[in-house]
C-alpha cells in the first residue's frame, strides 16, 4: 500500500512540473515561434504580475485563509501611486504611498479576520468592493497618466535584455521562498495551516503573524499594481479586475491546498507560468482568445480532481 500511495503522491506532488514541461515540449513541436528567447521572455513578462500577487496569496492560503481583495488592491495602489506622482510627490515617496495603501488594506483584512473571527472569505470579499469603490471615488472613473520616463521604466524597462517586472518578480520569489522554507516565520505559516491551535498552544503569537501575512498579501498586490500602472503608462481604475481568481488559480494549480499547510511558492510560480504559456500557445496557434477562459477554468477543475483522486487511497 505504501509503495503505491508513495508513487501516487509523487505524481500528485510533481505532476504540475511534469505537465509544465510537457506543455513546453508540445508547443515547441507544434509551432517554431514558441521556443525563442524573445517569446519566452514575453511569456515570463505576462506571468510576472500575477505571480507577484500569487506570492502573498500563497502565504495566505498556506495558513488556510484566502484573500479575495487583491484585484481591487492592485487598482487602488496603482491609482494612488499615480495620483501622488502626478501630484508632485516624487517617485520614491509615491511608490511608498502606493505600497503603504496596499499593506494597510491587507492589515485591515487580517485584523478583522483574526480579531473579529470572521471568515477571511467574507472579509476580503467585502474589501474587494470597498477598494474598488475607493478607486472609483479617487479617480472619478478616469485613468491617471503622464508619469515620466523614470517611473515608466519600472514596468517597461529592461536590464540586460530581461524585462524589469520579471527581475522584480524573481527577486521577490527568491526572498519569500527563503522566508517560507528556512525561517521560523515560514515554519509558523505552514504550521498554522496544519493546526492553528497547536501553534497557539506552543506560545506563538498566531494572531499577530496572521494579520501581518494579510498585510503582506496587500503589499504584494500593491507592488503588482504599481508595476502595471508603470507598464501601461497609465493607472486604470479597472486594472487588476479578476486577478484574485488568476492568482488563486496559480496557487491551487501549483499544488497548494486550499485547506492550508501543504504546498509552496515554487508551485505557484509554475502555476502562473502555465497559464501564461497556455495563453501564449493559443495566440501562437490561432485559437480564439475568448476560448482561453474556458480552457483556464477547465484546467483548474481537472487538476484539482486529479490531485484529489491521486491522494485518495
Amino acid at each position: 500500500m505504501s509503495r503505491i500511495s508513495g508513487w501516487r503522491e509523487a505524481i500528485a506532488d510533481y505532476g504540475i512540473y511534469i505537465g509544465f514541461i510537457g506543455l513546453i515540449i508540445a508547443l515547441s513541436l507544434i509551432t517554431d515561434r514558441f521556443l525563442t528567447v524573445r517569446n519566452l521572455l514575453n511569456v515570463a513578462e505576462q506571468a510576472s504580475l500575477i505571480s507577484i500577487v500569487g506570492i502573498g496569496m500563497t502565504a495566505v492560503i498556506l495558513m488556510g485563509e484566502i484573500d479575495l481583495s487583491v484585484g481591487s488592491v492592485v487598482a487602488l495602489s496603482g491609482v494612488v501611486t499615480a495620483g501622488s506622482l502626478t501630484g508632485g510627490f516624487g517617485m520614491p515617496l509615491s511608490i511608498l504611498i502606493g505600497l503603504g495603501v496596499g499593506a494597510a488594506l491587507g492589515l485591515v483584512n487580517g485584523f478583522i479576520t483574526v480579531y473579529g473571527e470572521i471568515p477571511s472569505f467574507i472579509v476580503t470579499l467585502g474589501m474587494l468592493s470597498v477598494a474598488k469603490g475607493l478607486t472609483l471615488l479617487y479617480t472619478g472613473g478616469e485613468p491617471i497618466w503622464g508619469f515620466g520616463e523614470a517611473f515608466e521604466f519600472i514596468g517597461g524597462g529592461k536590464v540586460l535584455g530581461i524585462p524589469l517586472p520579471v527581475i522584480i518578480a524573481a527577486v521577490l520569489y527568491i526572498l519569500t521562498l527563503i522566508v517560507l522554507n528556512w525561517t521560523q516565520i515560514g515554519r509558523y505559516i505552514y504550521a498554522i495551516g496544519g493546526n492553528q491551535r497547536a501553534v497557539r498552544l506552543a506560545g506563538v503569537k498566531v494572531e499577530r503573524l496572521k494579520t501581518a501575512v494579510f498585510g503582506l498579501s496587500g503589499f504584494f498586490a500593491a507592488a503588482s499594481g504599481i508595476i502595471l500602472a508603470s507598464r501601461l503608462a497609465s493607472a486604470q481604475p479597472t486594472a487588476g479586475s479578476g486577478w484574485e481568481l488568476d492568482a488563486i488559480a496559480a496557487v491551487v494549480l501549483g499544488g497548494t491546498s486550499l485547506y492550508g499547510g501543504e504546498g509552496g511558492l515554487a508551485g505557484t510560480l509554475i502555476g502562473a507560468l502555465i497559464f501564461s504559456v497556455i495563453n501564449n500557445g493559443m495566440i501562437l496557434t490561432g485559437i480564439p482568445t475568448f476560448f482561453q477562459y474556458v480552457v483556464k477554468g477547465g484546467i483548474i477543475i481537472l487538476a484539482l480532481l486529479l490531485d484529489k483522486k491521486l491522494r485518495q487511497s
Partner: protein
Amino acid sequence: MSEAPAEEEAKTESVNEENGQLVRMDGITKRFGGLTALNEVDLAINDSEVVGLVGDNGAGKSTLINVLAGALEQTSGNIFYKGKKVEINAPEDAKDLGIETVYQDLALADNLDVAGNLFLGREISNYSFGPLRFLAKNKMNEKAEEVLDVLNINFDTMKAKVRNLSGGQRQAIAVARSIYTDPDLVILDEPTAALAVEESERVLELINDLRDEGIAVIFISHTLQEVFNVADRIVILNQGNKVGDMKPEETNIDEVVKLMIGGRYENDEPN
C-alpha cells in the same frame, strides 16, 4: 447543588501547606455562559507527585487542567506556584513557570515532521536577520533524535510528517516536546485513550520515569486501574465539584466509581 457547602468543607482538608508544594489552585470557578463547569475547586500538587484526575464525562477535568495550562481563564479563584500567587492567562505563562501540557488531541501540526513538532514555538536558530530567524534544521533533527532515544521510541526517519505515524509515536512526540524544557509539572490529558495496551504500558512507565526525574505529573484517565497503578494521589471531580482527594491505598476502585457517578454521594470524606 444544595449540598455544595458541605463538599467545600471536605475539600479544604486536602489543601497541603507543607513544604514542597508546587502548585495550589484555590477555589477555581469556571463558567461558560450559564453553565458552571468548575465550582470552587481546590487542587494542590506537590513536587514529584503523580496526581490522577478522574471523573465522568463533563465532570470538569479538562476545564481544570486547561485553566492551569493557560488555555482557559478561570472566572474566579487563584493559582499559587511555589507559594507565590501567579496569573496564568496564556499557554506561554504556564510554560514560563514550568508547566507543560500534553493535550488529548496532542496538538501536533500534522503537516510538519517530527522535529518540526518537537521544536514548535522554540525553534533552534543559528542566526537571524531582522525579524527573520533562520532555522537550524539539521541541529533540530539531531536533537529530536536524542530526545526520542531517551524515551526509547524509534523512528525510521525524522523527516516523516507526523500524520503518517502511529498513535504511540505521535504520543511520544507530544510527551517528548513537553519534557524538553525540563518542566516542574507535566499535565497529560488522557494520554492512553487512543493507544493500544502495549503502548499504554509504555506511557505509564514514562509517568514513573518523570516522577523519578523529579517532575510532577497530573494525568487524566478513564482507566481507573491505570490510575491506581501509577498515581500517588487520586482527585475525583463530579459535575464541576471536587468530591474526593485520596491516596490509592486508602481507597478502592468501587469507592472511586461511586464518587465519580454519585449524584450526591454521602460519604465523600477524603480521608
